[in-house]
């Protein structure tokens, strides 16, 4: 997905593992209208990039190569929200070679209508949650809740 270089600022530092550049896409920072998922305004750019950096490091990816990430747990052990609608998972679509990556808070439900959804699974696929559990990012109980579209 090419999103152009004028659609938001780019983080000054690439990811540690793969050297990916990351773009803070304006569409998901208050300029995308009601339909676009929005990062929490209280989440700093560094914190948003950190979610992507860890996702690149741990590689919880689906069959398309898209990456998924969460914020680190707070002092109470809870996974904090990262989206304005209570989303706790961010999705990073596979970027074309030499393009910066971008991401957004992921809706927990599949939302398209019947004509577009035949046979399509939810996002992220269950294999991503299994990978997160194997990495110790989430527990067995939390994986089961995410399978259902529940909050943690």
């Amino acid at each position: 997905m090419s999103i152009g270089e004028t659609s938001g600022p780019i983080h000054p530092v690439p990811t540690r593992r793969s050297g990916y550049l990351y773009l803070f896409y304006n569409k998901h920072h208050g300029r995308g209208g009601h339909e676009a998922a929005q990062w929490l305004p209280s989440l700093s750019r560094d914190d948003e990039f950190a979610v992507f950096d860890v996702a690149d490091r741990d590689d919880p990816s689906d069959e398309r190569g898209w990456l998924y990430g969460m914020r680190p747990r707070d002092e109470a052990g809870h996974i904090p929200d990262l989206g304005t609608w209570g989303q706790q998972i961010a999705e990073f679509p596979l970027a074309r070679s030499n393009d910066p990556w971008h991401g957004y808070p992921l809706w927990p439900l599949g939302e398209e209508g019947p004509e577009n959804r035949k046979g399509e699974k939810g996002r992220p696929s269950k294999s991503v949650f299994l990978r997160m559990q194997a990495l110790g990012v989430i527990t067995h109980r939390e994986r089961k809740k995410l399978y259902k579209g529940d909050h943690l």
Partner: protein
Amino acid sequence: MISDSGAESVKIRTTCLPNFEVSWAGGSPGQPGYWFGSDDGRVQFMSLDGAELIGPYAIAPSEEAVNGIAFAGGLMAVSTRNDVTFLKVPGPRGGHVRRTVFHGGAHGVASTHSGSIIAPMGRRGILLMDPRPETAQRVRILKPADEALYIYKVVSLASPDRGTILACAGRRGGFATLPLAGAGLENYGKKLRPVGVDFVDVAALDVDGFPFAVAALGLDCSIHFVRDLLGDQTTTTLHLSSRRERAYRILCTEGHVFLLTDKRLYAFKDLAVRFLRGEAINDATAQSMDLEAVDASLGPDRSLLVVMPDSVYPLKIDSILAGGDPRTGPPRNDSRTDLGTKRLPTDSDDGSWESFEKTPLEQSEELELTEVL
């Protein structure tokens, strides 16, 4: 004020189904027993004594985890994060199960008093399937007038003379009511949006004489009571002040209130009745049980069904309230947990409601379901 009593260990009967990872459990409206949903979109029935099994049947085309099962007439609805499937309630003989599917995810599914099926679909709104004698073919989507609402849970409230309304937990968008049908519904619904509250569940108080009494649950474990959603502008809020816990589920039955968090199950004896009597509830006392559960629902035979990562606990309501041994029969497997009594810090306040200025029904769309062979 918090005062902990000494916790004691108790045994809990657990239920496990072979080759079936339970994601959801609930009671059966027909034959006494349990319906279970699995992590891969199947459903299975088990009688109360475990002797009779029906299924498992592969229901959800997406093979995603079942997050709700509801019944209306002879129909069954099964929801996942990716689809909602409608079918005639399967029987013990098995065979081909004809299904129709809405290819959009829901956070659960419920039935209304008039026999419709409703499903909360997040920012998309509410799926509504009107009762039909045959297999469902069409559904309506009710879009809330307020786009800030993310419909996370929904419950139906009704009385014969005042109509039917839906009460919705709308996450940070608030706690909302939407009129559905009836003579007493002159307005377009209303919304309560206390600052900082993330509404994650809602339940009817289920006490005779109070058909529009509800409790809405905040992620911060605040419980927001309303005596009459159609007539009251006042909300009484119970703050558990539990920064260390996150609320998952609220269940109300027989005048009691049960709260499931990420760490415990709380049982507030007679709390709903006391609230409806007009008594102060800021001295609420709860039994609490340490549980790291996935979900909970009301079960058959006066029980709660608590879904654990690897099993299901059927817990007798009387045993939970008494703080005694909740075993309901010969245990198949034993687990141990702590049961203690806690007096929880609470206070009350009043909330103010905003009225919607247009009807959500004007924005509804009707969609054809897809038949699955």
